[in-house]
C-alpha cells in the first residue's frame, strides 16, 4: 500500500511558517524582556511560558476563542479572504506557533541577556540608534543561540497534535499533519504506514536537534 506523503510536506510547511512567525514575535518579546524594565515584566514572561505547561486542548480552546468564526479576528479574516481561518492549514500554523514559540522566547531572552553589556554601551556612545545597535551588534553576537532556539522551535512545531486537531481538524489532504496522520494510521490498523512515518519524523527531529546542539554553545564573551 503506497504511503501518502502529503502530511510530511504539510507538516514541514506548517512548522516553517510557525517558526518564522515565532522568530518575529518571539524576538520582539525577548528583546523587551531582556532590555526594558516595566511593570508586569515577569507576568509577561510567565504568560509566554504558559503554552509549555498547559494541556494542548486548553491551547486549542484558546485558539478557537481567538480565531474562531465568531471571534473578531476570525470575522475580519473571513471578510478579507472570503473563507474562515479555522480548519485550514493556516490555523494549523497558528497552533504550531503557539506550541513552539515559548521556547524561542525563553532561549532568545537568555541569549540576549548573556551578551556583555559593554558592547551595547559602546555602540550607544558611538552614536548607534537602538535599532542599529540591535541588528548590527546584539543580534550578530547572540545569533548562534537564537538560531539554535529556532531549530528547536521548528522541531517542536513539527510535533504538535492536540491544538492542531482542535483548530485545524484532521482533514486528509488539507489539514492532516504528520502527527495526525500517524494517529489515523494506527487507528485504522495501517501498521506499515505508521512505522514509516514515525521513523521519518524521528529522523528529522534527530537531525534538527543535533544541528541545534552544534550551534548553541558559542555565546560570545569579551576576550
Amino acid at each position, binding site marked *: 500500500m503506497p504511503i501518502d506523503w502529503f502530511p510530511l510536506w504539510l507538516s514541514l510547511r506548517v512548522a516553517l511558517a510557525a517558526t518564522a512567525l515565532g522568530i518575529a514575535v518571539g524576538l520582539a518579546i525577548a528583546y523587551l524582556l531582556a532590555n526594558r524594565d516595566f511593570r508586569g515584566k515577569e507576568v509577561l514572561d510567565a504568560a509566554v511560558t504558559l503554552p509549555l505547561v498547559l494541556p494542548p486542548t486548553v491551547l486549542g480552546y484558546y485558539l478557537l476563542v481567538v480565531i474562531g468564526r465568531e471571534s473578531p479576528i476570525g470575522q475580519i479574516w473571513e471578510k478579507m479572504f472570503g473563507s474562515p481561518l479555522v480548519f485550514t492549514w493556516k490555523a494549523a500554523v497558528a497552533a504550531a506557533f503557539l506550541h513552539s514559540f515559548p521556547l524561542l522566547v525563553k532561549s532568545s531572552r537568555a541569549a540576549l541577556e548573556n551578551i*556583555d553589556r*559593554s*558592547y551595547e*554601551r*559602546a*555602540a*550607544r*556612545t*558611538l*552614536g*548607534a*540608534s537602538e535599532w*542599529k545597535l540591535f541588528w*548590527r*551588534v546584539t543580534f*550578530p*553576537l547572540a545569533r548562534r543561540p537564537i538560531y539554535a532556539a529556532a531549530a528547536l522551535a521548528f522541531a517542536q512545531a513539527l510535533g504538535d497534535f492536540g491544538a492542531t486537531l482542535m483548530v485545524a481538524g484532521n482533514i486528509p489532504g488539507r489539514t492532516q499533519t504528520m502527527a495526525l496522520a500517524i494517529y489515523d494510521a494506527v487507528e485504522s490498523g495501517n501498521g506499515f504506514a505508521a512505522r514509516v512515518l514515525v521513523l521519518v519524523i524521528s529522523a528529522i527531529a534527530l537531525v534538527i536537534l543535533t544541528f541545534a546542539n552544534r550551534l548553541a554553545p558559542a555565546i*560570545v564573551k*569579551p*576576550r
Partner: protein
Amino acid sequence: MIKARIKKTFPACPDSAGFSLDLELSATRGITVLFGPSGSGKTLTLDSIAGFVRPDEGRIMLDDAILFDAATGVHLPPQARRCGYVFQNYALFPHMTLRENLAFAAEPRPRLERHRRVNELLEKFRLQDIAGRRPHEISGGQKQRCSIARALIGSPKILLLDEPAQGLDAPLRAEFYEILRQVRSEFRTPILLVTHDLEECFELSEEMIVLHEGRIAQSGPPRRILDQPANLEVARLLGAFNLIPAEIRMLDPGRNRSRLQIGEFEIEGPYFPGHLKGDRVTVCVRPEQLRALPRNGRPGPNQIRAELKRVVEQPRGIRLQFEGLAVDLSRADYEAQHADEQWLIEFPCDALRIL
C-alpha cells in the same frame, strides 16, 4: 570642558549597604584622573556623564550642551552626548574587523568623510597593517589602541576611560601611557580617567580628584596632594604615608618650629598654624622622607629608637618595616650600614605634616 554636579542615592537593601554619590567636578583640557578605592563611585560618575545612569539630582554640562539637568528633566541618551568611552575590556565588537569597528563608529559622520576619517585614525594609531583582523586575533596593546581610536573617531567632546590599564603587565602599561600622552597632545579632547593606581595618577595627570565613599575628599595636582593630603582619609587612600599618632608639646611661630611627642620621644617639626598645644594629631610622613641609621649610643636630635621587624625587598630599594612605620632607602645605603635589629629613625623637620 565638562562641569558636573551629580547626586545619586542607592537605598540600603538586605543584600547591600546603601550608597550615595554626591559630588561636583569640572575638567578641562588635559588629563583629569578620578582616583579612589573600589566602591568609591568612580565608575558611577563616569557612567552618569556617559548617560548609562540617570542621577537623582544635579546637572551635567559638556561645553555648552546640557547633558543632564534634574530641574528641567533633561536626560540625553548616550547616543546624543558625544562622549567617547573606553571600556575596561575595550568592548571591541568581536564579529567585526578593526576597520569595521572604526567604520561603525564613523557612521554618524557625513558619508564622504567616513572613509578618510577611518584611514586617518588607523594610521595615527598604527593599525593600518592589521585593519582586516578581528579583535581576538590581535595583541592587548593593539586592542587598546583600537578602542581609543574607535572612541575618538566621532570627535567626542570628552574621552572617558574606565580603569583602562588595570590588569596590564608593565610594558603594555607603559605603551598605554604613551598613547594617552599622544592623544593629549594631538587631540583637543579633555580626558577623564578612572583609576585606583597612584602611580598612574602621577604618570598621566595634571589634575587629580580623590573620591571617597561617593564624595570628593580632595582635588588638585597629584604632587600637591601627595605633599599635603587634606585629611587622614586621603592619606590612607593614597597609601603612601607613615601615619603616626602624636601630641603637640610646643608651638613657636616666631622660629617656625614646633615640638611633637611620639611615644616616649620628642621631635622637632615646622610650625603648624591652626593647632593648639596639647592637640592629639597624626604625623604624616612618607617612608622615603625618613632616614634610618644603625643605633650606636643615644638618639640624636629628631631621632627615635625603633626595632626592625622586617626587611622588604622592593624594585627600587629596600623598605625597613618598624613597629608602626616604614622607612625606604636605597640598596646601597642599606648595605653600607650595619644591619641589626636596633635602629634610629631620623625625622626631617620640614617634611613633617600633621593631620
